[in-house]
């Protein structure tokens, strides 16, 4: 009889009746063959693996993280409430210690969704990991969290949300942004002034294979995690690094994903991308589940798996080693870098254009943060889109110092014309406010 080493929770929500459009990679069929494989393998019967039904997240859960324009209901469909709710459910059962770890095998995904949401980008509307994590933080006593994003695409949404949070270490490993959407995630993206080094990016060259991914985990990610000592490790478990994925150029495998998972030992894994729905997902997902449960996965292989055929070249290996050295250097220098930025005492500003490729919306954003050595810092975002909305959004982090809290309220209360909405996330009271301009 099979018995797991860890008690593993599973939320499986394939949203068989939801698609972005009928031929979109994010369509009804995406997890169909995964379900077939999971059911046929009898995984849900294994002693120590428990399936949970997703809950729905609430509007308040979403507003902890997002400023949705014009409102939450307009940017989310029912499937997004469920998908985020699936992640929330898994997070809950892990923190309630009903299980040792858990995997939310849900769709639609979320890691390209940023703090301000005017629509969908990279198939994502809301960030399901962030909604889960901030619910968990508001409910349980957890502070330091690491999110390791192993999707093939840079997790730019999650990076944006945690850019200024010194308590959240965000590490993304992905196909080099010069060769793939969303075109970001370079080594020098290290986080905002109050959280320097708490964002780490590991761009990998196209055709990276098992050797490269596992090197990045063992030699870069794990040492950093050892240092950071998070209370919780979350894995954004995208599966589009697979050698058969139609929209990327990597050479990873089911065996590799399973081994990566058993090395990383995430408390919570959340499915992100992965569009090789027949040749990869059924095997990768089974591999990840078995790895989380601590069951032998050595026979979980794609029918056409040939490790020699997908092996990476020496150039790729060298490139990853060099990247690793640079990333580790940044990590080691984070305290010094933070000290430098915090000396400037005042505010830092950045302006960006954000394109929502899925919904074809352009956003113009000016962000201002209070530089603060004591907390994550109050954030002021002035955001407008070509759909005609113009909002002022203020974020006060949960552990905000008095000065940052006051700054946040000043921004919120300022007399301002020209905005359609003025919004405030006061995480110190876990409340969301909105006022008429």
């Amino acid at each position, binding site marked *: 009889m099979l018995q797991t080493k860890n008690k593993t929770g599973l939320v*499986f929500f*394939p949203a068989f009746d939801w698609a972005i459009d*009928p*031929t979109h990679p994010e369509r009804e069929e995406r997890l169909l063959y995964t379900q077939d*494989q999971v059911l046929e393998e*009898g995984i849900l019967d294994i002693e120590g693996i428990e399936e949970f039904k997703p809950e729905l997240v609430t509007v308040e859960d979403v507003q902890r993280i997002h400023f949705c324009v014009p409102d939450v209901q307009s940017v989310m469909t*029912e499937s997004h409430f469920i998908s985020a709710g699936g992640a929330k459910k898994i997070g809950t059962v892990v923190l309630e210690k009903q299980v040792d770890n858990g995997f939310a095998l849900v769709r639609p995904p979320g890691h390209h969704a940023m703090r301000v949401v005017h629509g969908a980008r990279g198939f994502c509307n809301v960030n399901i990991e962030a909604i889960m994590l901030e619910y968990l933080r508001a409910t349980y006593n957890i502070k330091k969290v690491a999110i390791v994003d192993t999707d093939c695409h840079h997790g730019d949404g999650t990076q944006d949300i945690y850019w200024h949070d010194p308590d959240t270490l965000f590490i993304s490993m992905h196909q080099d942004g010069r060769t793939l959407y969303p075109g970001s995630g370079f080594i020098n993206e290290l986080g905002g002034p109050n959280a320097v080094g708490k964002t780490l990016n590991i761009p990998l060259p196209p055709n990276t294979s098992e050797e490269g991914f596992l090197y990045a985990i063992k030699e870069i990610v794990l040492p950093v995690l050892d240092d950071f000592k998070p209370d919780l490790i979350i894995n954004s478990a995208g599966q589009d690094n697979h050698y058969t994925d139609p929209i990327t150029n990597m050479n990873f495998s089911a065996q590799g994903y399973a081994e990566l998972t058993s090395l990383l030992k995430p408390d919570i894994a959340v499915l992100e991308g992965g569009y090789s729905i027949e040749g990869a997902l059924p095997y990768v997902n089974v591999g990840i589940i*078995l790895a989380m449960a601590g069951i032998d996965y050595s*026979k979980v292989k794609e029918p056409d798996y040939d490790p020699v055929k997908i092996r990476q070249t020496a150039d790729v290996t060298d490139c990853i080693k060099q990247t690793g050295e640079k990333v580790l250097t940044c990590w080691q220098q984070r305290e010094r870098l933070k000290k430098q930025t915090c000396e400037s005492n005042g505010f830092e500003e950045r302006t960006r254009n954000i394109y929502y490729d899925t919904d074809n919306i352009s956003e113009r954003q000016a962000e201002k943060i209070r530089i603060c050595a004591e907390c994550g810092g109050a954030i002021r975002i002035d955001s407008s889109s070509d759909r005609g909305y113009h909002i002022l959004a203020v974020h006060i982090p949960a552990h905000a110092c008095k000065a940052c809290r006051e700054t946040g309220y000043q921004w919120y209360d300022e007399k301002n014309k020209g905005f359609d909405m003025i919004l405030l996330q006061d995480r110190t009271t876990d409340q969301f406010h909105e006022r008429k301009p």
Partner: protein
Amino acid sequence: MIIGLDVGGTHTDVVLLDKKGLVKDVKVPTDPSDLFNTVLTGLEKITEDIHHREITRVVLSTTLTTNAIAQKKMTRVGMIVSGGPGIDPENYRTNGNYYTVSGSIDHRGREIQPVNPVEIQGVVERLMDAGIRHVGVVGKFSTRNPDHETTIGSILEDSFEKIFLGHQVSGNLNFPRRIATTFFKAAAYSAHKAFFESVKKSLDKKGFEIPIYILKADGGTISFEASIDYPGQTILSGPAASVMGATVFAPENEDVVVIDIGGTTTDIAVLINRVPVLEPLGIEISGYKTLIRALKTRSIGLGGDSAVKVNDGKLEIGPERLGPAMAFGGPSPTSTDALSVLGLIQNSDREKAVQGITPIAEAFGESVEKTASMIFDDSCREILNQVQDIVANINSKPVYTVHELMEGYQVKPEKILVLGGPAPYFAKRLDEMSDFRVDVVPAWHVANAIGAALARTTCEVSLFADTGKGLAVSPEEKFSNKVNRNYNKTEAVKDAGDLLNKKALQIGASAEDFEMEVVEHIQFNMVRGFSTTGKNIRVKVQVKPGIIHGYGSISIKQGK
């Protein structure tokens, strides 16, 4: 008239019914070492003054195959299992002569690795050397494409008496359960066949040439003849007969909890509009999860004969049974003794019961009466907790579409029906202690046998179509049809319905009892690149478990 017979742990209930209601009922003791004799005695007693021409059907509910499995009195069988990529099938070993072989099929039914006939031949020799006569053959995804199982089966054909192929036990996906179910089917085949053939023979001898049906774990029946090929289906565990008995008297358009209070256990089931809730896949037997359709039930170790004791200053009721109640000559105090102390059971030796409860009362420094009340209330409370739990469990069953998650049916029972020995006393107290309306099932003492007698013949059919491959298949039904690109869900449901109808009639249903229910029907566009290459359609239909036509008025006659 029809006969229903339910073999219980201590006694066997037999009823004779006509269209108006219960004509006669008898109880005979169960002899676990000779079930055949028990069944015959029961049938003889019930038919004493009846002319055999008046009997139109007999339904038997026995735990024969279950007992054979539990007592390991099964035929030795060989198992040949091919897995392919995934979890090592060695993990699902059912017995000694279990061989894993090469060959694999993927989730869409495509061959990945062919069967190796030389390897199979090697296994054949070893099984023959071991003296094996019956062999099960199971492949991963054989319900999508049974070719490998049939290929292996044809290699075995000449060397063994009977071959059991995995895709014929169920249309559902679940390789480990398919292995276990095929194994039980192969292992129970001989015992099942021998038993019912001798029952049939002795009935024939007495001139009762009437159709015999067997109750299945899903609360449906199957004809004796058909059951020979589905011995696994007759593996009965839990209270199928009792639940069907309650169904006869259950109200329409309501969710109802059924509680069957027995000697050692209390079993709980749920009805939705007079249809019992089924396990999603099947029952568990001897630690193996199977694909044998079954009612969803919760069994707790708390019955009339549950031993009552004080442990660490705490009252403990069950789960063990040390014998009957002291009030009925047993060795130690039980729940029934508490009822006897409370004056709820006539014809019991109350003095003996008081004697039994006294030490417990002393341990708590309470009166005997108060202690008896406490025991009774604790039992009721535990039952109510479990009722809540099974309802929550049914409602938390995962669903896979947005629609089902948002609009899915939630069970909210407000009524409980109780049957079994102490039913009337429990019903009253459960009613007082909860918000449920609690009633006793009319004829509660033989409702189980009535349930068996009236249960309809049930079955299930799964159909899988892939218009990209141009095929609609239902391997369990030996069905494989070429379909064109326009084949759709509606046509698939119709094809599945035709197969279901054919199957139901074949295994003993009457046409008037054919009530089809679509359990699952889902259709996906298969998109490769940016164009649609076909449709992937999955349909599952079943005959709703329920009561045979023409006997609905029983509930009126017996109901209050």
